[in-house]
């Protein structure tokens, strides 16, 4: 029983990271209808930026967790630049062109970082120094696990408030519903899309710090499979839906953790993939997705 509880908490930890990454996928998909393949690699960039920032921070005597802020800023700018340079010229082209460009950007990021830092995995220093936390009944969890879940929940609540309450958030919802009509209402579509990419990439950077702290080995290809899993989480929750990404991410994390613990650690990825097939068969719109009729 205690073991099961431990696995569930582990699952929630991984799931929180998936959820943070899935938010980026789902927001971008909702607004420009593009699977942003480069999103997974933004995570990798975030990890490397942290790795570079840590010596500077420790030399300046600042707390190490500030590297998360730096990574978030860097990734937000990178996300906007990628959108402006690579995706914006193709906004009115066939979707297959935009998709191939996204794959191209993803490969470009991977290979640039491979040439810069080589393909050998680098150890990621421990930036959150906190021991195990006892929750009573002799049940302990590590500090980083609790922190991951807590940070993810806080960020999701903030994002939800941002989308629902602020003017830019309202604009994002309007553009994702009908970009043309939103433009006629005086919403700047370009700014809104840039903000979406910036927020999504910043969340990915936070996920990167949390992920690298939990699994302290980073390499240029770390983002690609993490990205696929997060995308599966977004589809599971309902692509385009922000609460859906959170639910999907957490559900995926728990399923994966339980599979690893009780069935086979090698087959965990296959199980995740099987879930995607089943979801697409039974309810393609996902758990929280809305079914939108098609117009001719």
């Amino acid at each position, binding site marked *: 029983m205690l073991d099961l509880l431990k696995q569930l908490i582990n699952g929630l930890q991984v799931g929180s990271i998936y959820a943070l990454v899935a938010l980026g996928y789902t927001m971008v998909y909702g607004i420009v209808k593009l699977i942003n393949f480069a999103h997974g690699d933004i995570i990798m960039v975030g990890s490397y930026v942290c790795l570079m920032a840590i010596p500077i921070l420790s030399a300046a005597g600042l707390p190490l967790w500030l590297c998360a802020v730096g990574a978030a800023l860097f990734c937000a700018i990178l996300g906007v630049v990628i959108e402006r340079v690579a995706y914006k010229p193709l906004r009115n082209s066939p979707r297959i062109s935009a998709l191939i460009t996204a794959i191209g950007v993803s490969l470009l990021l991977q*290979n640039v970082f491979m040439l810069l830092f080589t393909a050998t995995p680098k150890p990621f220093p421990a930036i959150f120094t906190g021991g195990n936390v006892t929750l009573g009944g002799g049940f302990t969890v590590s500090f980083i696990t609790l922190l991951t879940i807590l940070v993810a929940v806080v960020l999701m609540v903030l994002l939800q408030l941002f989308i629902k309450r602020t003017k830019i958030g309202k604009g994002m919802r309007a553009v994702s519903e009908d970009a043309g009509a939103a433009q006629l209402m005086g919403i700047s579509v370009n700014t809104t899309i840039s903000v979406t990419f910036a927020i999504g990439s910043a969340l990915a950077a936070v996920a990167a710090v949390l992920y690298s702290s939990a699994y302290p080995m980073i390499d240029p290809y770390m983002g690609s499979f993490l990205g696929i899993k997060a995308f599966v989480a977004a589809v599971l929750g309902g692509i385009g839906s922000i609460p859906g990404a959170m639910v999907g991410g957490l559900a995926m994390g728990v399923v994966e953790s339980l599979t690893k613990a009780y069935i086979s650690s090698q087959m965990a990825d296959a199980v995740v993939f099987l879930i995607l097939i089943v979801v697409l068969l039974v309810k393609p719109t996902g758990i929280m997705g809305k079914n939108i009729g098609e117009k001719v």
Partner: protein
Amino acid sequence: MKKHTLASYLVNFVAAAAVYILITALMNGGVISRQYQGVLVFACINCILAVSLNLTTGFLGEIALGHAGFMSIGAYTGALITKADLLPGTPGLLLGMLAGGLVAVIFALFIGLPVLRLKGDYLAIVTLGFGEIIRVIVEALPFTGGAKGLTGIPRLTNFTIAYWVMVAVIAILFAFIRSRHGRAIIAISQDDIASEAAGIPNTYYKTLAFTIAAFFAGVAGCLFANYMGILGAKTFNFLKSIDILVIVVLGGMGSFTGSIVAAFGLTLLPELLRGFDQYRMLVYSIALILMMMFRPSGLMGGYEFSLTRLIYKLKPKRKEATK
């Protein structure tokens, strides 16, 4: 018309045979070294892969990122069958190719049917995941040699077999895309709502194109396995799928000629430029992005080179006569 089709088949067959005789003559004469003979076999295999992927990505307009996964299935199936030595020599290889293709088709149906019912780009992500999962499963299975790899596969593939299988695959796919079914597939890529309204069963044709592509990827995989003599699951990773996709995109989505030219070009080029390998994927990624910005239809666009058309152009009077 019938006579015309027959004549064009004959002309193209003669041309393919002429190229074959030329290359074998160069090989026997020692002009093409043993190392480059191997490269030519790989070029033929890449050509089969690219032409088949062009059916899904170019003509149907769905991105598939798991072509190496189907190749892997075909390679392992074919290798196990030729290793079992059911038939000796080339017939055994043909049996292996057929079996490898069919097993790939089963997997393609398993992932194609649920995904291709849907609109949107789900196929890209599902095939991407599929390619990775196949690798994990192959490494976990007991009879595929696991992570150490499968060894002792009879080396049955040579240039002659690879070349003629390639010619056959190109001919079959070319005939297919010019048929009623091929036109239906092109119609879906142009406008899926209009094609559905015109009575084309979209899901059926999407799945058909996807499974045919998977079949030929399996065939190519079997050729590859029987050329290498040793297989490791890591060979068929995501980068292999991207290699094939780059060939299709650069050559031209919807042009078999483009795929053939790009397959030979991109297989031979890295051999000629030593030290290029480190930067290959970097160059590919930039090429993909720039291509989509400035020439989204690829080098050839939808253009097909036609030998018969060339002959008729050179002899305009004969054209009147044969009609």
